[in-house]
């Protein structure tokens, strides 16, 4: 098969559906595929997805009270059996991962999750997934149909097609799974106030910071620089000194800032995978053999408690 006949995109998040349609268009370079989107939502969601220029929309208008949105997987499975898509693209959110795994189990295949790049070749689809905490990339070819992949947010453009022709909209009845959990309560998490991805400058803390009180020192530097404060995983998940959205690494943020200053960061691959796209990397670490120095543009092998005040002063006089 040179070109997939039918591509199905699935996400609980309407904007992510837009991105997945962008990804589906890349797979449909020859323009012979039909792209269909599954929308779990009301008419306004359907209208929004229609504006992305999709061929067909399958609408699951209501997930019954007490159900998780992931319970649509059985409805999806039925659709997959009838529609026989060659490729299914799922948004790589927590919900997407659960839907993906449930479908993969029922279809007896392996989903390739958090796909970073993919291409359709004459012998099938090849996709890249990071392994070993970002230390390596694996190129894989799924051997079973359909191809099931998940794609994270922010990798493909949402394209609103002006005067998009109205897609065919088919309403799917919700199929209740036999075994299910009961959603008792849901609470919104406070909105994320940090945006590391778009920060121009980032000051990042590692295990070299001895005490939580010392964060104040770092805040001074960040203020002088107009930088966002970030950290390595142990500082947020182990010690809880900083919120999870401030940590950089394989399962955290991947930054693209002009300047990254690592303070007491040793440079383990789990972390540095998140800073490869930074323009200039500065490292301060007491240990001259810390791996971060090899991956930095400028390094100072000294105690960060001596470097910090000197650096703040030097920047103030710039």
């Amino acid at each position, binding site marked *: 098969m040179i070109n997939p006949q039918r591509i199905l995109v699935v996400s609980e998040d309407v904007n992510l559906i837009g991105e997945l349609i962008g990804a589906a268009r890349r797979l449909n370079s020859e323009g012979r595929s039909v792209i269909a989107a599954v929308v779990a939502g009301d008419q306004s969601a359907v209208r929004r997805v229609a504006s992305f220029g999709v061929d067909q929309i399958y609408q699951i208008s209501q997930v019954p009270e007490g159900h998780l949105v992931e319970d649509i997987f059985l409805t999806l499975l039925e659709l997959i059996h009838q529609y026989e898509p060659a490729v299914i693209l799922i948004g790589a959110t927590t919900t997407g991962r659960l839907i993906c795994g449930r479908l993969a189990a029922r279809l007896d295949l*392996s989903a390739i999750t958090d796909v970073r790049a993919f291409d359709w070749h004459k012998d099938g689809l090849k996709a890249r997934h990071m392994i070993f905490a970002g230390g390596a*990339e*694996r190129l894989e070819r799924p051997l079973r149909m359909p191809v099931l992949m998940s794609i994270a947010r922010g990798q493909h453009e949402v394209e609103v097609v002006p005067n998009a022709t109205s897609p065919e909209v088919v309403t799917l009845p919700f199929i209740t799974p036999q075994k299910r959990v009961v959603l008792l309560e849901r609470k919104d998490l406070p909105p994320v106030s940090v945006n590391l991805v778009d920060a121009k400058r980032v000051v990042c803390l590692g295990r070299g910071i001895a005490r939580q009180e010392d964060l104040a020192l770092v805040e001074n530097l960040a203020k002088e620089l107009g930088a966002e404060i970030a950290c390595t995983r142990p500082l947020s998940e182990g010690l809880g000194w900083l919120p999870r959205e401030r940590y950089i690494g394989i399962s955290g943020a991947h930054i693209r800032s002009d300047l990254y200053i690592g303070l007491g960061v040793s440079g383990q691959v789990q972390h540095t995978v998140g800073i490869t796209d930074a323009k200039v990397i500065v490292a301060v670490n007491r240990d001259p053999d810390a791996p971060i*120095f090899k991956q930095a*543009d400028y390094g100072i092998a000294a105690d960060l408690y001596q470097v910090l005040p000197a650096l703040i002063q*030097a920047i103030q006089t*710039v």
Partner: protein
Amino acid sequence: MKIVVCLKIAPDPEDLEIGSDGSVSTTHAEWTIGGFDLPALETGVRLAEMHGGKVIALSVGPPDINQSKIRKDILSRGAEELVLVVDESLRDASTAETARVLTAAIQKMGDVQLVLFGEGSADLYFQQTGVQVGERLGWVSLNAVRDVRLKAEGTLQVQRVLEQEIQVIEVPLPAALSVTSDICEPRLASMREILRASKKPVLEWSLADVGIESLAPSVEILAVKAPPRTARKAILLDGSVEEAVRLLVSHLKKEGVL
């Protein structure tokens, strides 16, 4: 309550050797329990300590997973028994194969009420196996679980963390749950537990033992390479702290990033 905790034993990502041509080797890497899996083990052990029951640790993989150091490590952290399903064909197994073998092993154990997983394996991190096993068993399965409490006989109440919300969910047993890495802090084994570990049973099963004749791959691995890295200057600034800082600021000004 009979609890199974699934652990991925794999080469330590820290020990990866990257060649100048971008090749990746795990030949000299030490095999260890995945870091994301230890909080799952701790969660299972705490539930068993609180409500009675027993934790069986389960891992599947190539013969490399059966090492005395790893066995001791697992059994000194509170598991009462370790089951390993070993076969060479599991070396590069993808999630469908791994989930199929784990499911068969859990079915063979019988009478299991809860299966716990970490948020992902330390080597592949597809975050899929736990969810797949639950579904293959015909049980409810959830990911991103941050808190597990036994509410009544046969019912758990869990907290699940999504990108923008927290859910409180009632889960009927049996169930398969993948827990977040911050659900709890894994314990350090005491000397007493380390000594006790060597007396605990370890079972090694073959694929045939769990009723699987052969394991057809669902995915072909075409290449494993180091991701492209940005070339860095790697200039170490010498001299006193003041001197080094002065040099740094002048470099950064030249780069146009201040």
